[in-house]
Structure formats: structure tokens, C-alpha cells
């Protein structure tokens, strides 16, 4: 059985759990990180020396880095569906997953994440700069989703599992936001999926 160490308030754990539910995999979610601790124990560090969540353990094989976990699970269980067989379609999924991780998630953290967990930690100028950066990135994603119904093209796939949690986080922040019709349309469809309902916190509850 799969074991996933993480907490559902973590974006990276949400991404992996969205994928696990999409694939219908039998699993156990072991609470770890933040208030749950665990991540600093020698046993956890032996699985994941980087000390973050999530970590996947499958028959003795330990994997960390959320997007690497998503790629692995989809390649194992959903070739030709969530994991595109076509190299170019897969490359576009990969590209947007990398963008989600290196651009979007970095724009959300730490300034915007702090709004609910530690308000006052950053100056209004820092918060505003991060908010503007997110608007620019949402504009990019909006252009993409104006051309194709899902992140990597015509079908729902692994890139949508990775993208939905940070977009959900952004949409629930107490900040001003522009209108992104294609993103909102996409999110409306993706968030109706049973796996999304099990993974994304309802309403405006944020962790970070």
C-alpha cells in the first residue's frame, strides 16, 4: 500500500493527494509537517533528507518532490491518460508543472501565504509586489487556458492536478484580484471533480 506523509494544508501535499484520488489508489495519509511534526525525526530524514512534505513510500521506495511524485504515480497507473504518451503533449504538461513550481508557487510564498498565518510579517509594499507578480502569472495561465481546455491540452492530466491547488489558494486569498475568465472556467470544471472535493479545503480556509 502507498503511504503518503504530509498535511492537507500544504499545497504540495494537496497536489499529490488530488492525483492519488484521481487514480483511485488505496493509500494511507500519515500526518506530517508543521503542527504534526514528524519531519525532523531521524526516521523521516532517512526517507526524505530534504525534510519537507510530502513523501511517498511504496514497498520500500521513498520519493519526495511533489511533482516528481505526481509524474511517477501517473506514469505507473495512468499511461496514455493522466500521463500523456505523446512526448510533446507530455513536455507541455511538464513545462507547466515546472512553471507552477518555480514561478507560481514561489510568487505565493512567503509573502501571500503569511496573510492568514502571520499577518503583519511583511510590509504592504512586499505584499503588493507579490500580488502583482501573481496577477502577471495568472494572466499567462489565462492565455494558455483560453487556447486549450486543460493545462497540457485537450484532456485533463497530471498538470491539472499540480496546478489546481495553487490556483485555489490564490483565489481564496484576501487580496484584490483581476478577472481571469479562462482560469475561472477551468477551475470551475476541475474543482467539481470528486478528487478535488476531497483534497482542496472548502471556502477560504488556508494553510501554507
Amino acid at each position, binding site marked *: 500500500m502507498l503511504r503518503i506523509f504530509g498535511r492537507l494544508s500544504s499545497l504540495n501535499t494537496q497536489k499529490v493527494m488530488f492525483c492519488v484520488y484521481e487514480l483511485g489508489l488505496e493509500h494511507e495519509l500519515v500526518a506530517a509537517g508543521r503542527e504534526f511534526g514528524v519531519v525532523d525525526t531521524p526516521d523521516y530524514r532517512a526517507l526524505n533528507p530534504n525534510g519537507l512534505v510530502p513523501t511517498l513510500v511504496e514497498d520500500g521506495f521513498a*520519493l*519526495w518532490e511533489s511533482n516528481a511524485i505526481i*509524474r511517477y504515480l501517473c506514469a505507473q497507473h495512468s499511461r496514455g491518460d493522466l500521463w500523456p504518451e505523446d*512526448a*510533446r503533449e507530455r*513536455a507541455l504538461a511538464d*513545462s507547466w508543472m515546472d*512553471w507552477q513550481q518555480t514561478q507560481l508557487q514561489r510568487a505565493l510564498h512567503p509573502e501571500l501565504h503569511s496573510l492568514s498565518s502571520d499577518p503583519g510579517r511583511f510590509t504592504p509594499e512586499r505584499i503588493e509586489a507579490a500580488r502583482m507578480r501573481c496577477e502577471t502569472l495568472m494572466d499567462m495561465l489565462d492565455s494558455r487556458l483560453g487556447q486549450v481546455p486543460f493545462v497540457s491540452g485537450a484532456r485533463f492530466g497530471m498538470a491539472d492536478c499540480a496546478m489546481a491547488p495553487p490556483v485555489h489558494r490564490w483565489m481564496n486569498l484576501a487580496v484584490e484580484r483581476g478577472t481571469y475568465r479562462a482560469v475561472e472556467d477551468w477551475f470551475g470544471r476541475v474543482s467539481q471533480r470528486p478528487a478535488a472535493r476531497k483534497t482542496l479545503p472548502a471556502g477560504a480556509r488556508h494553510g501554507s
Partner: protein
Amino acid sequence: MLKLWGRLNSINVMKVVLALDEIGLPYERTDAGLQFGVNNTPEYRAMNPNGLVPTIDDDGFVLWESNAIVRYLCAVHAAGRFWPEDPRVRADADRWMDWQGTTLNPIMVPSFAGLVRTPPEKRDAAAIEASRTKTDAAVGLLDARLEGREYIAGGAFSMADIALAPIMHRWLNMPCERTPRPQVERWYASIMARPACAKNLTRPIT
């Protein structure tokens, strides 16, 4: 012929150059980014709305994000060689590639930019030292990973070594103090003995 946009002192562009040379694919490279500009033109933004380098155009297929490009080139041209066919070995390679992008590079940027791209009188010594300390510790994870393994994903050279070579070349050549990391140094020597690295990772870091 495959087209590549990007300047050679970008570690992300260098990943793609190494992938292309390791595979042996001919390509045409155009300097872009920083002093070369290009990446802010409407033509470039139409290809890559994110506006960073590198970008490739492979017979009409445009792709950006350096690790996605490395995965794509290796999957199409070097499956079973640099792109591991075994899902767990491939996941191992993927994980260290992602770690390079999500962890190692962000923590190294302040010390690299401070020590190499900022005149001495404008440097933020505290930010440089904080970045250097964190990077030095993170490289320790890679050192532990390489204990008992010839390459990052195991016994064979893979896309993960391609993606990590430029940043490790940068780190090992930065003018700063580093904890000795015997496994990383042994790995770096073996990577540098390969023709693609020997040819491309030659210039001083800038």
C-alpha cells in the same frame, strides 16, 4: 534544425546545451537574456510568455522551462539512455531535477548574484553569507545521495546529471568557502571528463 534561445552564462540554458551535445543533436543557438535582450520582444514573448531563457523550437514545437526541455529531448532522443525507462529510476532523476529547481537554485541565487554579478561596494554581506551557508548544507544532501552511486540516479549517467552539472559547476567555482564534499567532487570530475561538459563548462562563471 532545432533552434535554441539563451545566453551561455545561464545555468538553465547550459542544461539544454549539455543535453543537445550529449545526445549529439545539431542545433542553432541565438544569444538571448540579460545583456543580449531578445527575451522582451513581442516575437519572443509569443513563443515564451514567461520571458525567461531558454526556449527551444523543435520543428515548430515550442517549449520552455529548462527541466521540461531536458526531459523532452532525452525522452525523444535518448530513451533508455539518459531518460531512464524504469519508472522508479526515472522518478529518482526527476526528484533531483525538481530539487535543483525548487531548492538548490533559489537558495544559491543570492550568494551567486552577490559574489559574481554585484560590484563589491554594493554587496549585501549578510544575505550572501546566509545563502552560502544554506547552499553548502544543501550540497551535503547531494553528497550523501552520491555515496555508493556513480551518478545521481544510480549506476548510469542520466538527465539528472545533465540538469545538475551547470549549477554544480557554478557552485564549485564560486569565490567562497565550501565544506569539502568528496562524493560531489568525485562526481564532478567524472562529469567534466565527458566531452559535452569538457567543451561547454569551460568559461569562468559570470
